[in-house]
């Protein structure tokens, strides 16, 4: 229970269906100085919202400390990725390492059967195999951030809210008199809050910023920069470069602290190298897939092998460190981390 309307309604729906529900909020981050966040996601006031909903539903409610797991699996990873020129998605790493790994592994200790979240996704069991699918509300679908889940996780997780549209979720919450019915969604990274991520990196890992050159694709030096961590693929602004027409970051070479910029056409990507490939059903084979490489975006057709995905048509601006999810219609086949793009 994050304190948001989705997890609030998820708890209510399961309770309504007659299940024994226990609400938990994860304490993940204490700020660089140990202070509890008061802005961004997962703040003290969010925990308060969750507690209030739990009280309203009359279910046991606990706050669980996963700050160590989060620091190791998410924050350190975030810093490390930027240092090597990648653009991380910490919410996905949180799902991969904290929520659906460390927390999930405690289910038996808690004497609980399943973990329930407010994600807009659906899961179902077909002939003994668990399938993850897009949520009914295509605009709110969050199956992308769950694409790393395999049978181990899917068999013990439920996503009750995925059958509803966002407005239906809010309507259920309003009907129940939940104060979180109209609460706006948090778009911030929970440990960065309302700051720019660069400010966060400066505070937590200033060493990540080593100055270097901004060059064009011929290697010609155009400007200086004060750290590759300040750039992401496809970035057009804040390049410190003025050549009369737009330039975009097409490559980040962290080893030499070099940012390569080019014309729009040079953003085209026809193949991505993959890491941490997982198949929902446990195993898969090379073949055609529909791939989604942004949190909200169209899928693109491509040919998937264990090590790479080759797009049928060139795609624009894909940043290593991001995630690619594979679909067969609405069913998630699996996902992977993008290690390289060319």
């Amino acid at each position, binding site marked *: 229970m994050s304190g948001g309307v989705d997890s609030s309604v998820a708890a209510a729906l399961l309770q309504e269906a007659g299940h024994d529900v226990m609400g938990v*909020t994860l*304490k993940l981050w204490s700020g660089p100085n140990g202070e*509890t966040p008061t802005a961004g996601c997962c703040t*003290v006031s969010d*925990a308060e919202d969750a*507690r209030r909903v739990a009280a309203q539903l009359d279910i*046991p409610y*606990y*706050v*669980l*400390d996963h700050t160590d797991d989060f620091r190791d699996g998410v924050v350190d990873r975030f810093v490390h990725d930027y240092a090597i020129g990648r653009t991380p998605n910490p919410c996905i790493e949180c799902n991969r390492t904290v929520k659906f790994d460390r927390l999930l592994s*405690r289910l038996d*200790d*808690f*004497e609980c059967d399943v973990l329930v979240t407010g994600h807009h996704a659906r899961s179902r069991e077909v002939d003994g195999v668990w399938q993850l699918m897009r949520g009914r509300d295509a605009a709110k679908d969050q199956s992308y951030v769950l694409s790393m889940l395999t049978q181990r996780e899917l068999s013990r997780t439920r996503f009750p809210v995925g059958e509803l549209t966002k407005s239906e979720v809010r309507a259920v919450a309003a009907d129940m008199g939940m104060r979180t019915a109209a609460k706006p969604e948090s778009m911030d990274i929970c440990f960065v809050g309302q700051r720019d991520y660069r400010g966060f990196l400066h505070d937590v890992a200033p060493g990540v910023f080593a100055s270097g050159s901004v060059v064009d694709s011929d290697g010609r030096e155009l400007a200086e920069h004060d750290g590759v961590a300040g750039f992401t693929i496809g970035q057009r602004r804040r390049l410190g470069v003025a050549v009369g027409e737009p330039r975009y970051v097409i490559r980040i070479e962290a080893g030499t602290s070099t940012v390569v910029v080019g014309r729009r056409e040079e953003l085209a990507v026809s193949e991505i190298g993959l890491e941490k490939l997982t198949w929902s059903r446990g195993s898969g084979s090379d073949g055609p897939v529909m791939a989604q490489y942004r949190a909200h975006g169209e899928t693109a057709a491509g040919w998937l092998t264990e090590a790479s995905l080759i797009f049928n048509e060139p795609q624009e601006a894909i940043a290593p460190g991001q995630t690619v999810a594979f679909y067969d219609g609405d069913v998630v086949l699996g996902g992977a981390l993008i290690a390289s793009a060319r």
Partner: protein
Amino acid sequence: MIYLDHAATTPMRPEVWEAMAPFGSEAFGNPSGVHGVSRTAKNALEESRERIASIIGAKPLEIVFTSGGTESDNLAIKGAVLNSTARQGLVTSAIEHEAVLETADFLKRLGMPVTIVGVDPDARVDPDEVAGAVSDDTAVVSVMMVNNETGTVQDVAALSEAAKRANRDVLFHTDAVQAFGCEAIDVNQLGIDLLTISAHKFGGPKGAGILYVREGTALEPVIHGGGQELGRRSGTHDVASAVGIATAVESALDDRERFETEISAIRDHMERSLVDEVGDLVVNTPKTGRSSHHLNVRFPGVRNETLLMLLDQRGVAASAGSACQSGAATVSHVLEAMGLTPDQARESVRFTFGWTSTLDEADRAAMIVTDIASRLR
């Protein structure tokens, strides 16, 4: 629910509630006033003060009513330090309650000298170390009589004596919040200048406490205003609370013998059961020099967070460290000061007994704890 978190708070004794009731209705007055309504309130307030004073060997005007243990600790330490003309500071121990340690941190940020003395594995403070830390730069020394997490009892008389040997003008404060009700407290026998008591720890109301301030001890008030409590603590008196504290103090005194024998036997019984049933259990509460009602134990390989949740589900209330603002348990600074690693501190749970505890409760709780602990390992 088997309630084993008396160190956090205790149920109010019925006679306390009864004694307090009239002061919300017919005896509602503000003690500071000329008329009869005020006088009734004032009489009750002063009578409460006398009752409390006589029990700890103090004079009535040496008792200051406060909003509880935290405020009393703040007043004692800030009051002493901010009253000194030279920039004198504080000597305290690593196992104090946050009310003392956070106050110490605040004073340090203001530029006062602050020394924090370590403890041994039993959380005991060494009088010689205190004497060594005290100098002419020290305004006050603060060491708690009984530690809230482990129940370790300090030799306050020896500590105070040692401190005053090093600087005869230094004030000695002790936080007796966990001690009152199980330890004998006579301020003259202890040789102390300042003492904190909190009513809700022994069957009294919450938000109610006292600070004993030895006559002749000047304190800078923390709360300024109308000048009540001889200027030491301004604000309209909560007479109901004062009466509640006095009644609770008397009941606790009457009950002290039972605490020393019966309640401590109940605690010992649970300790024995756990030690017998849980093979590698480690007892953090020291074997000697322990309170009558604390039992702090460590379950190797078990997360206290999970254990406490499951105990709650099975109707046993216990705790570990203190809860932070979001509700998550924090790692105990007391256990760490004793030499436990953060992981070991995270395996430790505190069971504390009180005036309502029974042997049957201890028995049932021990069985439930054992059952859960063995499943979690």
